[in-house]
């Protein structure tokens, strides 16, 4: 199983006007690695999910995500935005954005990893560490340590 996240999928200076631009920007990183085979198709899936119920949660987090036929393996892209982007959370814009891409079929192992990632996001210490991360590799290490325990 390849890594959930690589430094290429991390953007610590995310600049985007709205959540759809954020999704496009982060998804492009996954697409250029071949993990997303059809960028437009995947973005449509993300958008459909986002329209069902905005994915922003309190504490400055946005989690655009989708299980999509255009995803080859479970992947995580991370963006940090200084100004914040509105993801529909009640307490304002999100400065930490996780784009979660899961294959439509997704076997249980993969989905379990995504589940434990989601569980980590709830912890303030994990969020703070992400805000403090100095470079993309630090974010990757943090995710690997917290989520995969390595």
């Amino acid at each position, binding site marked *: 199983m390849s890594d959930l996240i690589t430094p290429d999928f991390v953007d610590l200076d995310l600049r985007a006007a709205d959540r759809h631009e954020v999704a496009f920007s982060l998804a492009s990183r996954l697409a250029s690695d071949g993990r997303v085979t059809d960028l437009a198709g995947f973005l449509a899936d993300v958008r459909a999910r986002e329209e069902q119920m905005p994915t922003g949660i309190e*504490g400055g987090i946005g989690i655009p995500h989708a299980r999509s036929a255009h995803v080859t393996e479970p992947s995580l892209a991370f963006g940090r935005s200084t100004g914040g982007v509105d993801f529909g959370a009640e307490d304002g814009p999100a400065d930490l954005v996780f784009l979660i891409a899961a294959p439509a079929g997704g076997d249980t192992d993969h989905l379990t990893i995504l589940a434990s990632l989601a*569980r980590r996001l709830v912890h303030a210490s994990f969020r703070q560490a992400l805000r403090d991360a100095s470079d993309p590799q630090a974010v990757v290490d943090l995710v690997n340590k917290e989520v995969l325990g390595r």
Partner: protein
Amino acid sequence: MRLVAVTACPTGIAHTYMAAEALEQAAKDAGHQISVETQGAAGAVPLTPDQIAAADAVIFAVDVEVRGRDRFAGKPTVEVPVKKAISGSAELLARAEEAVRQAAPANAAAAPGDAPAPAPAAPAGAAAPSDQRSSAARFGTHLRQWMMTGVSYMIPFVAAGGILIALAFMFGGAEVAMKVNGGVFQGHTYPGVTDLSKLIDQAGYAGVLFKIGSTAFSMLVPVLAGFIAYAMADRQGLVPGIVSGLLASAIGAGFLGGLVGGLLAGALVLALTRYKPPRAIAGIMPVVVIPLVSTLIMGVLMLVVIGEPIAAAQRGLTDWLGGLSGTNAILLGALLGLMMAFDLGGPVNKVAYTFGVGSLASGDLKVMAAVMAAGMVPPIAMALSTVVRPKLFGESERKAGEAAWLLGASFITEGAIPFAAADPLRVLPSLMAGSATTGALSMAFGATSRAPHGGLWVIGLIGRPGLYLLAIAAGVLVGAACVIGAKQIGRAEVAGEAEGAAGAAAADGAGAGTGAAADKPAVNHEALVG
């Protein structure tokens, strides 16, 4: 506090798990125990029945339908959108605590007659941890919850139907029943109304009241059985339960037949849902297979297995009563009283009543008087009990007590069914004692009745009315005293048993404060917020 929770979101890869984590963290911080079932894409590890049974409250943090919601039936429940559990998990736990606290009073207050009140509100300290109970005591609690749910849905039918019938007697006299259903009254033979469009012509407006009332009354046993099964097995219990109740009525098995039928139907559906079918038919299990199979089995059971023995027993009792004619009149009166109160409109009661009507036809007016007097005692005795010792009864029972005065006065013995169905072992013997007293006294006083129906509204047709009323009053006092005594004996025993007291108290009606005592989930459904 012990909690169980289900989290679920549309995609099932993010919020489901975040909500679970947030709830687990908040519960840990607050010192609660929580088990979360994450109904997400990674597959749910289901909560065990033990975990659910032990939980004081249930949290649903969901944006999609909870799978297997009926597993949680009867628990205090808080339901919110999944994000609320992530951002406001501590607040959510507080709401769950509130739901536990409110579970008991909410039963009575939520909707009149809709939510049952198993017992008077218990002191806060009675909310003992459920894990201290023995399993037998817990089963007793469940049994009482199930029966109370059935009773609470039944009470409005008793009140509406019974009062309409009473009004019909008030305005139309005792003959209204014969005008509608056919029969002989004071030498006049009525054909009965076969074409409802001629109802007013043949029976007048009192006949209309009677017809409406008796129609509502005919639903009494089906509703009791149906909602007992519903309390046990959720929606899937309703069909076999109601059909069992209808058949119990049809075979003359009365409310005891409905009680048993409802419990059996619920248990049967619960057993059927345990069966894990092949995937191909799993989808049609709840809509087709379980209703079909459970209704078929219950129908056969009620018609073939229970129906014929009841009919045979009724024939035997009738013959036996016939053989007793001419023996000691006071003993006969007492016996008829016992029978009238034994099942409050069920097969035994019917035998006694039919015996009274038969005696009336053959010119013995004393037997009819004893039967009618004895049949008036149970509702009045219960009404008196609820006034004298309201704390022994739940809110819905006290409400039923208000209507029971009128029902008893109108010789509608069924008015006592809500109390008997909720607590048969204490209530029925007590009422039998009261009715037997009245039956014996009525015979001893030599009271007579030329009316087979109508209660106090046909007092003009009663011979020796003063003594007749005295006989009724005496039986009411005996019955009420026995009910109050029996209910308190049960309680005293509970106080004596230090361990397991919580469970027994709940089974006994004192434990409404425990979360598990909620018959209907007190659902706090918050609108999904965008």
